[in-house]
């Protein structure tokens, strides 16, 4: 008899943190799962740890072979999965014991095909990442960036088998996949609570290969944004793609442009209200010469796109920076 959920767990030189990860999976309150753990040619004790754990918990199935990289490993895991649902998991994260149970309840309640959750960072970085909850907001959020925390995702297996990860989207394979699935009509959801502790450390690809990741991200946006926007906003797509890049510094005028675009998008899709709070705050943060005019504009944005509580302090800092103006901020920086 096949399990309802197949967990795909790619492992590469993960021995240091793997036992904690495996323990968190074995302790899941939802018990009807198989875990396909793929040792991607590790040179440490990863394989031995996996085999030892599989000997204790028969729901774990181990594949070990030479190194092929993350995308190939994920696709191999997806191909091997037999469950109706596939859950992603990274080899150094810790799933809360009710993760699978709550995500399954969420997809059953909402009819979603893909479901993530909020995450808590630990290790080198602290804090929580709160993502939009419903389908419309997640689709809107994808204009700018990923709207699902990759290691938290539970997705319909048939969907992932039909749309495997694209090798061309290296370092942003998840963003590329969510955008592709969004355009294919898949339905998204996030459980609005922390269900996974996400370990951060300097060796992660998202930090070491940031530049390549940004280039991939732009390619993904170039495909997604024109297809997502309604007809009357389509002419704005090229400018939006340029300004949406998360590392792009903005001028005051460009921030105005982005703010008005978000307000127009809200007018078209009121459900994206919950998606853009952190987005406009990020944009403000990458506007180095922000003055009082932007402070006024953010008052409107804060009403249109409320910020999560976790962003309150960051907003106040940015507001103070705008009110003080670039000259005073420059002077203060000089003092430091």
């Amino acid at each position: 008899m096949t399990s309802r959920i197949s967990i795909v767990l790619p492992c590469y030189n993960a021995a240091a943190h793997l036992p904690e990860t495996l323990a968190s999976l074995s302790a899941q309150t939802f018990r009807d799962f198989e875990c396909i753990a793929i040792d991607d040619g590790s040179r440490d004790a990863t394989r031995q740890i996996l085999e030892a754990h599989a000997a204790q918990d028969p729901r774990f199935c181990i594949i070990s072979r030479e190194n092929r990289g993350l995308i190939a490993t994920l696709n191999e895991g997806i191909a091997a999965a037999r469950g109706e649902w596939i859950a992603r998991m990274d080899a150094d994260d810790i799933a809360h014991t009710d993760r699978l149970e709550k995500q399954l309840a969420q997809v059953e309640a909402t009819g979603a095909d893909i479901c993530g959750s909020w995450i808590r960072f630990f290790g080198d970085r602290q804090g929580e990442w709160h993502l939009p909850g419903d389908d419309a907001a997640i689709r809107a959020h994808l204009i700018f960036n990923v709207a699902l925390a990759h290691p938290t995702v539970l997705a319909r297996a048939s969907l992932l088998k039909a749309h495997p990860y694209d090798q061309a989207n290296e370092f942003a394979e998840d963003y590329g996949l969510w955008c592709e699935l969004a355009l294919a009509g898949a339905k998204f959801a996030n459980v609005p609570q922390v269900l996974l502790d996400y370990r951060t450390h300097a060796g992660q690809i998202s930090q070491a290969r940031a530049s390549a990741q940004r280039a991939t991200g732009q390619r993904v946006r170039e495909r997604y944004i024109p297809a997502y926007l309604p007809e009357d906003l389509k002419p704005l797509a090229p400018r939006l793609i340029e300004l949406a890049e998360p590392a792009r510094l903005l001028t005051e005028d460009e921030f105005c442009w982005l703010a008005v675009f978000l307000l127009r998008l809200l007018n078209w899709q009121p459900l994206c209200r919950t998606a853009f709070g952190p987005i406009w705050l990020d944009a403000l943060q990458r506007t180095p010469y922000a003055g009082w005019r932007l402070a006024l504009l953010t008052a409107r944005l804060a009403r249109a796109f409320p910020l999560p509580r976790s962003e309150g302090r960051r907003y106040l800092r940015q507001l103070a920076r705008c009110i003080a103006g670039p000259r005073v901020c420059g002077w203060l920086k000089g003092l430091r």
Partner: protein
Amino acid sequence: MKIVFFVRDLGLGGVERCVTLVAAGLAACGFDITIALLGGSRNLWAAQTDSVRVVDLSTVWHGKKPWTWLAGWRAARALAKDADVVIASTFLMPLYMAWAATRGLNQRLIAWVHGPKYELDAFAKMNPIHRAACQFIYRRLPEILCVSDHTRQSLARWLGMPVQPGWQVMPNFVEAPPDGFAPPTTDKPHTPLQLLFVGRIAEEKQPHLWLDTLEALAARGLPAELTVLGEGPLQNWVKDEATRRRLTVHFHGQIGGVSEFMRRADWLLLTSRFEGFGLVVLEAMQVGLPVVSTDSGGVSDFFQQRVDEFVVIEATGAALAAKIAAQLPHHAEIGAWLTNRARDYEPEVLLGKWVALLEEKQ
């Protein structure tokens, strides 16, 4: 937030176009917008104003029928009372009514000034009663929006007072061309050079300069043709004079599709005595069409530190022709610079400034 724009009507003029664009843009940003028509029921911008409420007050009052004034004032006041911000979209009737309707209310009133009042008055000689009434109100308004710094300075000269802290510059904007900010084509300039004028064929546009410019270019060995999009009282004079001087001028009347004419032209010729802003210059910039202009005021804001490359000090055909000849070797670079500069006037950028302005006293 509820905003009411007071306008005379929604005809085809530049002011009405700007009101329509700003009103529709703010409505798309979630503002509740009403446009009150005071002097006529004409709305030639119906397709653009379907997201805003257009209220026709011209049915309840008439400026030349004093016995209807009270009814008009009450209707306007009801709108003003319900609004957070009242905007007098231009002077005369909209200014008077917006001022009167907000007396005693705590509503925010903003006057929007589109033209250089000092130069306009000097040229057109305003009715002294209207001049006194408009000046009386402008002097008392804490907030005035001017479409260019030149317009602001001109207002200060006209009112005989220094620029006040509440007088802000808020440039106008135009719709993006149909296919966005397209790069200029590389097959330019043509032979003969193709010049374009867009606007009224009237005295304030100094049409004799068009012909003088064509002559001066020919004298420099640069044959040129002029296309005129517009109509006006001097059209026949220009036709006759062009024939007499054996110059080629094409007249197309007042038609749409201006951006297509601009894409085909090599230069936009602007010969106005005065301009508050110069929407046509902005349209040319969007499609990368180089511009030569008389020193007409508001347009200088567009060119920033490169103003000398575009604007002649002396309003003569020889000076305009010399400017064209000077731009000729850099035609493509100038077009690209103007296209890039036009981005500062994108609707989204300026609507962002409008939103900030409207939030100011919330």
